[in-house]
C-alpha cells in the first residue's frame, strides 16, 4: 500500500519547489531568500526520495539525503549566521514574477509531450524541474548580489535533483555539481571576502 500513498507526493513536492523558486526571485530580504531556498531544497529532496524509494535506486536516495543535509539544512543555517552577523542589505529582485512566469511557460513549452522513464517522470514534472533550474540560472546571471547568486546556484542544483529519476547512472554526483561552487561562495562570504551589499537596492527593504 506504500506505493499508491507515496506516488502523489512527488508532484506535490515538485509544485512546492516551483512556488519556492518563484518566491526566491521576488524576495528582497535576506531572511526570506534563505527561507525560500531551504523550503525548495526540502521539496526537491522529497521528490528525489520518493522516486528513489519507489524505484529502488540507492543513488537517488543518496542524492536526496545530500540535498536535504546541505541545501536544506547546513547552507541555510550558515547563511543565516553570516547575514545576521554582517547585517546584509536587501537585494534587488532580478526580474520579478513576470519574468519568472515567462520562464515557467518556456519550460512547459520546451518539454515534448511524452512521459519518460516508463512514466516515472511526466511531462509536467520535467517542466517543473527545468523551470526551477532556469529560475536559478536567471538569479545567477541576472543578479549582482552575492546572496542572490548563491541562492541561484542552489536553485539550479535543486532543479537537477527534480529532474532525476531512477536508472540514471551516477546521479548521486548531481548535487555535488551545484554544491561545490555553493561551498566556495559560502566560504568567501563567511570570510568576508565579498561585499554582501553588492547589488543592494536603496531604500525600503521590500517584500
Amino acid at each position: 500500500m506504500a506505493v499508491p500513498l507515496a506516488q502523489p507526493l512527488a508532484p506535490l513536492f515538485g509544485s512546492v519547489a516551483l512556488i519556492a523558486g518563484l518566491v526566491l526571485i521576488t524576495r528582497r530580504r535576506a531572511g526570506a531568500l534563505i527561507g525560500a531556498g531551504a523550503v525548495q531544497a526540502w521539496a526537491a529532496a522529497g521528490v528525489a526520495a520518493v522516486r528513489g524509494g519507489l524505484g529502488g535506486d540507492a543513488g537517488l536516495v543518496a542524492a536526496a539525503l545530500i540535498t536535504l543535509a546541505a541545501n536544506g539544512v547546513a547552507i541555510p543555517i550558515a547563511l543565516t549566521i553570516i547575514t545576521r552577523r554582517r547585517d546584509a542589505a536587501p537585494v534587488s529582485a532580478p526580474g520579478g514574477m513576470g519574468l519568472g512566469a515567462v520562464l515557467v511557460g518556456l519550460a512547459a513549452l520546451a518539454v515534448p509531450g511524452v512521459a519518460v522513464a516508463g512514466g516515472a517522470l511526466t511531462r509536467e514534472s520535467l517542466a517543473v524541474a527545468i523551470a526551477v533550474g532556469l529560475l536559478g540560472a536567471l538569479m545567477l546571471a541576472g543578479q549582482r548580489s552575492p546572496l542572490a547568486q548563491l541562492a541561484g546556484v542552489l536553485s539550479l542544483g535543486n532543479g537537477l535533483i527534480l529532474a532525476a529519476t531512477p536508472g540514471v547512472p551516477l546521479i548521486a554526483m548531481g548535487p555535488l555539481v551545484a554544491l561545490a561552487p555553493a561551498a566556495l561562495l559560502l566560504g568567501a562570504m563567511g570570510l568576508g571576502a565579498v561585499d554582501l551589499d553588492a547589488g543592494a537596492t536603496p531604500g525600503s527593504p521590500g517584500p
Partner: protein
Amino acid sequence: MNPPLAALVPCVPFAAAIALGLIGDRRLGGRRIGVWVNLAAAGATFLAALAFALEPPASSALLLADPLARHFALLAGFVGLTASCAEFGQAEPPDLAHALGQGFLGAVLAALMSNSLVVTIAAAEAACLALAAAAALPRTQAAIRAAWTGTVTAGLAGGLALFGVILLALAALPAAGAPALTAPALTWSALPQAVAAGQGGLLGLGFVFALVGAAAMAMLAPLHLWRSGREDAAPLMTTPLVTTLAITVILRLRQAVADTVDAALPGPAVLALGLLAVLIAALALGRQQEARRFVAVATVGQAGLVAVAIGLGTSAAVFAGVLHLTLATLLLTALLSPARTAGSGVTVAAGLVALAGLPPFGLFSGIVLIAAAAAHAAPLLLAPLGAGLGLSAWAMLARLPALRAPGAATSRTAPRAAGWARTGWARTGIIVPWLHLALTALLGLAMPIPLLRWFATIAGSLG
C-alpha cells in the same frame, strides 16, 4: 598500458596538488621545495600521458581511450610540463599557485579521459573552480571579484551542462516500461547508440542545455558575457586548457547526436555560436590595452573558429578543427607564460603575430583548412567568417605596439625580478614560449607524416 596505470595520468597531479598544499612555502637552499615538486609531478604526468597516448588501454565504463581523448590528454600533459618549466624560472610564484595549477591539470585530464558524461561535466566544473580559486591569489579586491564571478560562472555552466546530460539520459531511456540505464550506456563511447532510439524532442532539449553549459565554459559568444576574465585573472599558464576541454565536450556532443536529433539543430547551433564568437572577438580585440586581457579575448575568437569547424561537421572540418584547437592551445599558453626577461616583449610580439594567423606559424594552416572546409560545405559562410578573421588579424597587428606585456613587474617587485632575470633559472621561462611557437610552426607548415596520420585518425574516429 592497463587501465589502473592510465588512472595515474589524472591522479599524479591530484596527489601533487595535495602535497604542494601541505608543503606550502617551505624552502631548501633559498628555493621553494614546491617548485621542485611541481616540476617532478608535471614530468611524471607527461610521461604517463605519453604512455596513455602511445599504448592505449581498452575503453571501459569510466576510462575513455579513443584517439581524441589520447590526443588532448597528451597535449594537456605537455602543456602542464612546459608550464611547470616556465614557472620554475619564475622568481616568486604566488602561494598555492602550484597546488591549484596541479589540481586544475588533474581535473582537466580527468574530464578528458573520463568515459562517463557525468564525471566529465563534474571534472570540467572542478577545473573551472580551480581557476576561480587561482584568480583570487593576488588577494586584491579586483582578484576576489574575478574569483567570485568565476565561481558563479562555473556553477552556472556545470549546472546547465549536467541538466543537459540528465535530459539526454532520460531521452535514451525507452519510452515505456523502461528499466534503468546501465552505467556503460551513459558513456561517451556508447552515447550515439544509446540515443539512437531516443525521443527526438527530449534529445534536442538535452543537447541545447549541454551545449549552453559547455559553451559557457568555453566562453563562446554570447555566453562570454558571463566570462570570469579567467585568462587575465588566474596566474596559471595552463588556463586555456579549460577552453580546449569545453570545445572537446561540444565536439563529442555534436557528433553523438548528429544522426538522431533533427539535423537543423546540432550543426547550425554550434556553427552560429562559433561565428558569433569570431565576430564579437574581432570587434573587441581592438579595444584591449593589456596583453593578458588581449589573450582572453583572442581565446574567445579561437574557440569560435574551432566551433565553426565542429558545426560544419565534415571529416575535413573536424580534422581542421582539431588541428586548429591544438595549435591555438599551444599559442595561447605560450602567451600566458610567466617569463619576465629581456626577451619577453619579443616573445609576446611573436605570439600575437602567430595568433593573427600569419605564416610561418601554424595557425595560418588551421585557418586555411577551416576556410576550405567551409567553402566546400557552406560557401556563403565564407563572407562573415572572412570578415571576422580579417578584422581579428588587423586588430592584433594594429594593437601590437600599444600592448603592455602581461603582468609587468611593479615598482615594488621590479628590483627582485630584475635580479632574477639575470640568473640561469630565468632562461627556462623564456625557452618555453619559443618551444610552443616552434611547435606551432612545425605542425602547421611541415607536419611529419606520422602526425598527419595521427590527426587523420582522430578525425576519422569522429566522422
